[in-house]
């Protein structure tokens, strides 16, 4: 800042230079009461109410990236100029009362030395962008503890405080406020004193919220301020029975036909039994003909599944089918308009991974005060719960303890968390996930662009440990093909998308209305994708990736994969209970697509049989095998053996090339070995479907090599985004060619 006297400098009343009118964002102008208006001797003149404030100076200098002179003006002068540059929208402009409260809070915290100038500056900047309460921002940044904030608020609003840690509630009193009101207002009756109900609240209730409480309670009440995290835990505890019931039984109760709590209906069992009996009878009386028929049916099915998958992949290679959101579009988002976003993270026996998870969530480019992160822990997993508690999380990260009940599955935990979600949108991440920092914003933009019937945005999944070993490389190959080629094409063709296990972003209200996930289905994600489609909703893909940890141990991988195979069979059985109804709901294209997608598991089951037959024939030239393959069947089988297999291998190569994972292309050529593992897992899954249909084979995470990465400020990671710059700036072949030809 210039130390020169400013009286002789031009004033704001002389007008604002057009080039400076929007040099600072509106939020910063209004929050810091500043307005750049002129140039003087190479410096930008900025009108400010407090020209001596160092924070204001830092913020303005950093933003303008030029030498700055702050020139004292009255608030009225500045507001008038700002209003002229940014015509005010009533709901978005801070009221005088709110400003007073904020200033009061700021003074209280700085004078008492509870926050440093740097922390305050960072919080003020976020406030300028989002307009969220400054106290909440400071707490979400970790600059202030929730208890101190509650104390400050209590002082400001002259409200009593109440400590809820270790509090034993009176359930009768606590349940006087309906669950929905308690959850949405973060308010819970904790005691009754002289006819007055004492309600613990996280933040002072607005008059409108107070009216809601009035209506619900119908008796005198008084609010007491409480720690938000403690209150949240208490609300969960009070209503846990209700949450559990809904999480477990809602779908089975309201839409039993859509629930996998019964593996196969009696009708399905009868049909399957009849088919088996018919096959056995035919095999006894016409063994050769039966063998030929079975081989023919299997070959045709194989061909159809392959053609379907190849067609989808080629379609995706030919056109850009996912929603592309540019860095500029993300940057242009007005954070004041961002909705609350819920992130559900189911955890089970993953205590070790929690710090890494929190680090990765912390890197998300989204105002933390608008994040509602729920860490969903099972009640019997004390180690993970203790780990989470020990980390003393900020209030926007909630520990949700899911009571012990059957089935103990990820979807049940998600359903539990969904009931507590406060976000307009919600997303599932697995414990080891590393979403692109701007993924939430990209998803919002994708929702905004999509038609109203799109209620789910699926981000792409891939693996960060793809180079760890052969298995992880194959897995990455497979995911590149699935999420970069197949799913975008399914979405673009209006077919049902079997969702991936994480990074699916939902409109929360619609998801609740649908009953969330099926707790009895072990691939609840795939099932939900189909169910959404049946209800007339659609899923779109967004070009943003979440990196996960690929299973690097064969045993662990087989467990995970057999669960997927079992789940796909479950899902197929559920949705094919009434084929005609399904056909009506999803249309012929969707019907065929669904069946061919789910039949991928059947192909995996058939693979070993065909491989065995081929090998046996080559070695023995056994005529029985030859007879089972009449010429048309032989043609199909030959095409699948040679062209089909290679096409799949090459699509794996293509998926990797498409992503720029060049190191994986040669590994992709060995994919057939991987298919052998997949087939083994598929058979294991099939057997489990009969023996233990609802058993959730837990995948162990955290098996990748420990990593050491340079420290980087969490909030800043997306802003500096060196990878983006490198990516955009590199000279492409095309540019090079243009330069040469020019």
């Amino acid at each position, binding site marked *: 800042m210039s130390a020169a006297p400013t009286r002789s400098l031009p004033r704001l009343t002389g007008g604002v230079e057009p080039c400076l009118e929007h040099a600072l964002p509106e939020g910063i102008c209004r929050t810091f009461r500043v307005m750049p208006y002129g140039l003087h001797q190479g410096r930008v003149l900025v009108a400010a109410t407090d020209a001596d404030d160092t924070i204001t100076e830092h913020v303005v200098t950093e933003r303008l990236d030029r030498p700055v002179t702050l020139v004292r003006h009255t608030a009225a002068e500045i507001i008038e100029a700002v209003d002229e540059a940014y015509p005010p929208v009533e709901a978005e402009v801070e009221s005088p009362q709110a400003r007073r409260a904020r200033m009061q809070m700021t003074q209280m915290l700085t004078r008492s030395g509870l926050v440093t100038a740097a922390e305050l500056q960072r919080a003020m900047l976020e406030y300028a962008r989002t307009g969220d309460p400054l106290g909440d921002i400071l707490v979400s940044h970790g600059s202030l503890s929730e208890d101190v904030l509650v104390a400050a608020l209590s002082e400001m609003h002259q409200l009593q405080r109440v400590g809820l840690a270790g509090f034993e509630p009176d359930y009768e009193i606590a349940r006087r406020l309906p669950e929905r009101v308690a959850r949405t207002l973060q308010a819970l009756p904790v005691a009754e004193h002289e006819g007055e109900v004492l309600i613990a609240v996280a933040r002072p209730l607005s008059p409108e919220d107070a009216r809601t409480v009035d209506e619900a309670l119908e008796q005198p009440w008084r609010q007491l301020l409480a720690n938000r995290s403690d209150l949240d835990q208490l609300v969960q505890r009070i209503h846990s029975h209700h949450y559990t019931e809904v999480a477990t039984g809602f779908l089975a109760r309201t839409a039993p036909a859509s629930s996998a709590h019964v593996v196969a209906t009696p009708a399905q069992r009868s049909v399957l039994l009849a088919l088996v009996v018919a096959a056995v009878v035919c095999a006894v009386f016409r063994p050769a003909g039966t063998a030929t028929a079975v081989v023919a049916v299997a070959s045709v099915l194989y061909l159809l599944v392959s053609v379907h998958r190849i067609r989808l992949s080629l379609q995706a290679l030919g056109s850009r089918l996912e929603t592309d959101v540019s860095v500029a579009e993300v940057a242009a988002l007005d954070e004041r308009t961002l909705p609350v976003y819920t992130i559900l993270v189911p955890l089970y026996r993953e205590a070790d991974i929690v710090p890494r998870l929190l680090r990765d969530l912390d890197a998300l480019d989204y105002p933390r005060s608008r994040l509602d992160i729920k860490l969903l822990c099972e009640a019997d997993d004390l180690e993970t719960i203790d780990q989470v508690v020990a980390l003393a999380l900020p209030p926007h990260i909630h520990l949700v303890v899911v009571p012990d009940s059957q089935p103990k599955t990820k979807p049940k935990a998600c359903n539990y968390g969904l009931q507590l979600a406060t976000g307009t949108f919600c997303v599932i991440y697995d414990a080891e996930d590393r979403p692109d920092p701007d993924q939430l914003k990209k998803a919002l933009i994708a929702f905004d662009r999509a038609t109203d019937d799109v209620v789910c945005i699926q981000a792409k999944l891939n693996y960060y440990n793809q180079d760890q070993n052969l298995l992880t490389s194959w897995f990455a190959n497979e995911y590149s093909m699935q999420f970069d080629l197949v799913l975008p094409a399914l979405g673009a063709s209006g077919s049902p998308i079997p969702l991936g296990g994480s990074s699916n972003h939902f409109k929360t209200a619609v998801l609740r209305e649908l009953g969330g996930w099926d707790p009895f289905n072990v691939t609840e994600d795939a099932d939900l994708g189909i169910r959404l489609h049946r209800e007339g909703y659609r899923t779109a893909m967004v070009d943003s990736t979440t990196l996960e940890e690929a299973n690097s141990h064969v045993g662990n991988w087989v467990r995970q994969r057999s669960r997927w195979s079992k789940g796909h069979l479950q899902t197929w059985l559920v949705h094919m209970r009434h084929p005609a109804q399904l056909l009506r709901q999803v249309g012929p294209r969707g019907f065929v697509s669904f069946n061919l997608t789910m039949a991928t598991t059947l192909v995996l089951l058939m693979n070993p049989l065909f491989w065995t037959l081929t090998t046996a024939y080559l070695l023995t030239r056994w005529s029985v095998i030859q007879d089972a393959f009449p*010429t048309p069947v032989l043609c199909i089988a030959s095409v699948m053996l040679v062209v089909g297999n290679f096409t799949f291998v*090459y699509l794996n190569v293509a998926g990797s090339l498409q992503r*720029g994972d060049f*190191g*994986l*292309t040669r590994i992709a050529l060995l994919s057939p070995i991987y298919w052998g593992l997949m087939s083994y897992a598929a058979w294991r899954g099939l057997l489990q479907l009969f023996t233990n249909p609802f058993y959730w084979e837990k995948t162990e995470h955290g098996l990748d090599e420990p990593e050491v990465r340079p420290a980087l400020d969490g909030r800043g990671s997306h802003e500096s985004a060196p990878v983006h710059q490198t990516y955009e700036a590199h*000279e492409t*072949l*095309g540019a090079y060619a243009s330069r040469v030809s020019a």
Partner: protein
Amino acid sequence: MTATPPTRVVADLEPASGVVQAVGRRPADVSRRRGESLTIFVAFAVLYSVIGHWLVVDLHVVATETLDRFNRALMVTADDPSTLAAVGVDYPPLAVLLLVPFAAVPSLTASLAVVPVVSALFAAFTLVTVNTMMRRALVVLPVRLAVLAGLGLNPLVVMYAALGSRDFLWLAFVVAALGALLAWYVTADIRFVMVAAVAFAVGTLAGYGSLVWFAVGLVMVAAVLARLGADGTEIEGTTVGLAAPTVFAVAVWSAFNLVVHAEPWRWVSDNRDVAATGLADQSPVDLARGTADLVVHGAPIALVVLPALLVAGLARRNGFALWLGVMLLVSILVPALATATGLTDSPMQLEGALPILLVSVVGGVWLARSAVQDNTLVATGLALALFASIPWTFSAMQTFRHQGLERAFHDAVTSGESQEGARAVDGSLVGYDAEQQMADYISDHVDATGSILTDDASTYAVILLTGAPDLFLDRVDRSDEAWTAAAQAPADPVHYLLLSTDTARDELSRRYPAAVTGDDPDLRPVFTNQRYVLVSVPDDDRAGEQPPSPLTSPGPPADTTDDPSGATPR
């Protein structure tokens, strides 16, 4: 208070940072114009089909090799038993398999109406690819159309597009691969590497000559990436992506040869293009002269385009121009190299100028793009050069030393008269009247499946023209052993033998030479013409093993029509 360490998080784009090519996004490219492509495709496909129908069906200008491949395709679809073995290993597999869909209607195949359609479609596809290349080279529509007309009406192109030959079956894919590599170079979009990879692989299975362009393309891609500073992983990944399909195709085809013939390289040794007659013994001077003749008469624009590409590549550091120059040079040298190494017994055939012509046009297109402001001028020059070479090449087709049906094509086009019975420059007879007569006779008088024993390697044209391969017991139907057994004792399984009068090439004629001349008392001819003899087989005899006896089987009624071509029913 959060305890999370503020640590940098790996973003998805990180793996892609620093790479030379565009991955994970779609760079700007020319917009698709399906209407324009479709119009060009249909226009040329119809043009070549109509010309081809006139030449093949009306004027009888068709190569025997073409009839052989169509017969094999017919055997795959309509034989009894139908079998993929008909494809054989002496042709690249797709040279036959690509015809199979067109042989689905036997009567249409027998009429030869589909013969020109196949090559016409592939040639039209080639021209569409060239048009797309020109769009990427920013050549304006009128000039594009002029270039397409100049290329499309080149007599070599017309001939090979209209006569059902196999050249365009593989050249279409090679040109598509070159087009994809050009698009890759312009846009840096890695998807085009995959397109080129698949095109090269399919092209290889349709014509082994594709391997040469594939090899040059592979080196070029690696070199371009290295020059732009790509790291080893990117170069390796990209070249693996480009090479994998072709390597796989060759490996599978070799494995197939191993399983079926116990020789993995049978497809090389049995390839019908491989020299067997010693014609390859030519001096370097002969080869050089032959090469010069080929370029001067078949693709004279190469004389301008090649130096221009080399100059642009070396003097102006235009990498793609240099690479296309190398590719054109290789195209020019390949016929001589093939002759010198014995990979062909048809040295310096005019046919060899077709790839040179096409690569020259691709080179000319790139020169136009590189000319930037003079783009239209260069492209117009290309079109004019192409038009100017039309009469020159057409004239050369009549007199060029080494050729197939070029002279017959020339004469048919200039006179509009049937070339039946005309002699090609190499002395072979043009036309298929004799085959047609025999086929007609068989169609009229034989209807029992597998009742005619024949060596399809010599009588394929007759089989094709009947449209009923199931009537014949040929070498493909069961196995060579089964066929040999039937040839030794034909009475049991068959009623007739169809013999070629050329006993040198017909295994059955060699076995029964007396029957060919009508001197075998047991095997009595029922229908003969200049090239074929159909003899009846007595039911109870074992020809060559038992004493002669009178024919007892009810043979077909004798045709008493007097035939001017020499066909003699008995």
